[in-house]
């Protein structure tokens, strides 16, 4: 029967592809017949022309016969399909239960795939939203192993190094620095806004191939003149906070306490390489001491390949230049050279862990679709059994088997597409409901492993159902129809004529034995196998998650609010800071319901804390490979009480430990165990870092706090008093006495913090956002 289907297909293909040849052949064939017939009559004695006429008449209507032959090759695609479709719709209408069950199953199976594919497409496949994104490269420094960290190939540039690189390079048509920041935008009446921003070279936008829709791009002099104060706004910021006023160009805005002139607005949807930027400032706003220092590495570099330059050429050129840069500004203390490397921007879309996660997710939903198809196949098989009589009748009145199979497949396709449409709806709803907002994405990243790396935020915020996704869904639907439709259709048409017409009951029994039974059994066992795989994988994942959540983190996060605060740069005076901090804490503690308040410089579980080295006075230099890195944290005395970190030995920091008294430190358990395995560290004096802090005396040991991710081991940490090394930004932690009124606490504390800082420094507004 399969061979019939095959030759049918071949015949029709031939009829379509070689129509003229076939037409000529048909003509020749019939003409030959008529001639032979005429010869026969001529041999019997008829005159030549009478014979011919007689033969033609006997043959019948030549054109009609030709038409009949032609019809066989004709593929009445549309007409036939339409008939099949109508028949299928009628059939499905008659069995609503079956139809509903099938469509629901397929909706879940296909819909899940649509949703996950949207994520996969956004994360891994969709071209970056820039001009000719495949020509964009990122350029980074490579470092040897330092401070106990492994060697890196994604290190930032310092500005002098970048300038040297820029001057000497010949392979890129455009290159620009960029780095992410946060900026506070002050409003006249509304509270100040904390914005994600990027500090970029003047030809950043040109390199990416985007242009402002209002106003102008940064100019070349804005890339060289120090201290320029211009800004580029994002479209959403413009519409949101400045009412989309086209005359915004030339207006001034106050950012971080300084005045900036708006030069333009970027196109809608553009958020820079960080995926979140609302405002762009030229690199020249950076502090001059940072810009001039060849060893302050804070910039990333993006570049566009010059015309005709290949990636390999760029890579070797960059490598050579990297050596030159390192010779000009050596950074290494032990002679190991630094270098430079370039990679396609697309290669850094998402970090390997995220890529793996998405691929695993996709495999899982593919299995789910397979299960769904198996389900539907069983349903169709059962339905096929019930329709044997109908099929038998159709075969008897002359329907060819291929035609019948086509009709049954049409029904499968119909089911698949109805399921796909419902699936798309489901996918859309679930993506809309479950997909986190930008800040949500950021916290997701923070909890699974540090900063959103590369372009993760950019690509993940572009998850949506568009043409490519819909195309994928259509393909998936066809595939599904193929999987679940072929076997039942083939089975249903394989009905022995006389056998079935005899008795329906017998037919059912006939189909229940032998081959058909094995087929069904195969389906069921296959489905159970796949379902088991998915179940076990889910179970293992949940167990891992459970373990993670149960890991000790070292502090009590319940009822603790975190506020980020940022004092404006140029209003800040180092001596005034401890007073500001004192007043801030006083005011916040006075808010009813506040149990404790403290300040720290970086949050637990955020992964982005500072590190430095610990310097011992009383012992020989450590063996190579012994890691002397410690995490560095600045805290106020009540930190331990606010976060409920246990004090294990000695004393905590006191309010009396200030700038003018002796420097004191706390260390955590891990540090004590690591550096003083056989000794009591209390009372010892150590140096912290190579900078201005100098040395301090260890006065207490506290429990380990997780500052990295949950599944990382605790690092040794040292805690110094905020009051002895104040900074203009940090986190304010507030422990509420009770769970209720969270919002009120948040608002009150935020306002208190903001107001206090403002009062202390004169009539200024400062950014304070509560979390």
């Amino acid at each position: 029967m399969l061979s019939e289907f095959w030759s049918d297909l071949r015949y029709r293909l031939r009829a379509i592809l070689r129509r003229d040849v076939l037409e000529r052949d048909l003509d020749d064939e019939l003409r030959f017949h008529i001639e032979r017939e005429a010869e026969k009559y001529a041999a019997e004695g008829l005159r030549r022309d009478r014979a011919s006429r007689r033969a033609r008449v006997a043959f019948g209507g030549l054109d009609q016969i030709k038409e009949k032959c032609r019809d066989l090759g004709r593929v009445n695609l549309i007409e036939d399909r339409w008939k099949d479709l109508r028949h299928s719709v009628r059939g499905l209408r008659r069995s609503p239960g079956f139809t509903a069950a099938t469509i629901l199953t397929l909706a879940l199976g296909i819909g899940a795939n649509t949703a996950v594919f949207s994520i996969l497409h956004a994360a891994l496949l969709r071209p970056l939203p820039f001009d000719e994104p495949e020509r964009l490269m990122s350029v980074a420094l490579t470092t040897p192993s330092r401070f106990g960290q492994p060697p890196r190939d994604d290190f930032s540039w310092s500005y002098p190094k970048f300038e040297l690189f820029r001057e000497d390079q010949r392979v890129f048509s455009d290159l620009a620095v960029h780095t992410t920041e946060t900026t506070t935008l002050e409003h006249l009446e509304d509270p100040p806004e904390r914005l994600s921003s990027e500090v970029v070279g003047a030809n950043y936008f040109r390199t990416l191939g985007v242009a402002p829709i209002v106003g102008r791009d940064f100019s070349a002099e804005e890339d060289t003149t120090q201290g320029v104060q211009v800004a580029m706004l994002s479209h959403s910021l413009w519409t949101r906070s400045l009412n989309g006023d086209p005359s915004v160009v030339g207006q001034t805005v106050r950012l971080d306490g300084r005045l900036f002139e708006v030069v333009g607005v970027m196109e809608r949807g553009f958020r820079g390489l960080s995926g979140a930027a609302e405002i762009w400032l030229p690199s020249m706003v950076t502090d001059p001491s940072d810009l001039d220092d060849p060893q302050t590495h804070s910039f990333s570099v993006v570049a566009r390949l010059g015309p005709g330059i290949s990636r390999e050429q760029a890579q070797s050129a960059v490598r050579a230049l990297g050596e030159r840069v390192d010779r000009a500004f050596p950074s290494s203390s032990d002679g190991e050279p630094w270098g430079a490397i370039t990679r396609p921007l697309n290669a850094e879309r998402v970090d390997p862990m995220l890529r793996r996660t998405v691929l695993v997710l996709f495999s899982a939903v593919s299995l789910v679709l397979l299960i769904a198809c198996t389900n539907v196949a069983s349903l169709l098989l059962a339905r096929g059994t019930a329709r044997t009589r109908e099929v038998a009748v159709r075969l008897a009145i002359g329907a060819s088997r291929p035609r019948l199979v086509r009709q049954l497949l049409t029904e499968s396709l119909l089911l698949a597409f109805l399921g796909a449409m419902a699936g798309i709806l489901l996918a859309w709803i679930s993506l809309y409901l479950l997909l986190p907002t930008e800040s949500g994405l950021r916290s997701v990243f923070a909890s699974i492993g540090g900063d959103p790396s590369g372009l993760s935020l950019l690509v993940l915020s572009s998850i949506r159902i568009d043409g490519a996704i819909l195309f994928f869904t259509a393909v998936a639907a066809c595939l599904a129809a193929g999987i679940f439709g072929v076997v039942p259709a083939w089975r249903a048409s394989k009905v022995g004529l006389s056998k079935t017409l005899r008795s329906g009951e017998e037919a059912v029994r006939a189909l229940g034995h032998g081959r058909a039974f094995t087929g069904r059994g195969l389906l069921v066992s296959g489905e159970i196998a796949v379902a088991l795989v998915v179940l076990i994988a889910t179970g293992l994942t949940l167990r891992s998650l459970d373990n993670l959540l149960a890991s000790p983190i070292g502090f009590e996060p319940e009822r603790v609010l975190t506020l980020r605060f940022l004092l404006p740069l140029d209003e800040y005076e180092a001596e005034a800071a401890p007073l500001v901090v004192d007043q801030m804490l006083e005011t916040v503690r006075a808010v009813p319901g506040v149990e404790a308040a403290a300040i720290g410089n970086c949050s637990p579980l955020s992964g982005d804390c500072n590190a430095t080295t610990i310097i011992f006075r009383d012992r020989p230099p450590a063996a190579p490979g012994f890691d002397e890195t410690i995490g560095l944290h600045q805290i106020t005395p009540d930190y331990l009480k606010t976060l409920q970190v246990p004090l294990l030995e000695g004393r905590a920091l006191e309010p009396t430990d200030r700038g003018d008294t002796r420097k004191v430190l706390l260390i955590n358990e891990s540090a004590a165990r690591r550096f003083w395995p056989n000794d009591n560290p209390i009372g010892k004096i150590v140096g912290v870092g190579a900078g201005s802090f100098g040395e301090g005396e260890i006065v207490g040991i506290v429990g380990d706090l997780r500052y990295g991710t949950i599944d990382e081991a605790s690092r040794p940490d040292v805690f110094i008093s905020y009051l002895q090394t104040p900074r203009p930004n940090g986190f304010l932690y507030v422990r509420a006495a009770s769970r209720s009124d969270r919002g009120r606490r948040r608002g009150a504390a935020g306002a208190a913090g903001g107001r206090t800082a403002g009062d202390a420094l004169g009539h200024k507004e400062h950014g304070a956002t509560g979390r």
Partner: protein
Amino acid sequence: MTDEKLDLPQGTLNLLILKALSLGPQHGWAISERLHQVSRATLQVPQGSLYPALHRLERRGWIRAEWGVSENNRRAKYYELSRSGRKQLAVAADQWHRLTTAVSLVLDMG
């Protein structure tokens, strides 16, 4: 002389063509002549249905077609039984025998 031509029951034409080809490849006219002769002039295949039937059989893959040279040196389309055609011939012939036997039995019922 009057030919008493019998009308062919539906579906039987396929069977006859297949049988005719079972003895070797032939072109359409030859098949028609052979059937007429062998059936002792009883069967006259209506020429209008012969060629559509041949093409239909070709489409189903039971016979294969190839252009060749006829016995009087002209270009003609020859048909040949395929393997699945041979199988189909056996099945159809068997069905025919069983059907006619059953009908005869009923008619002889008396």
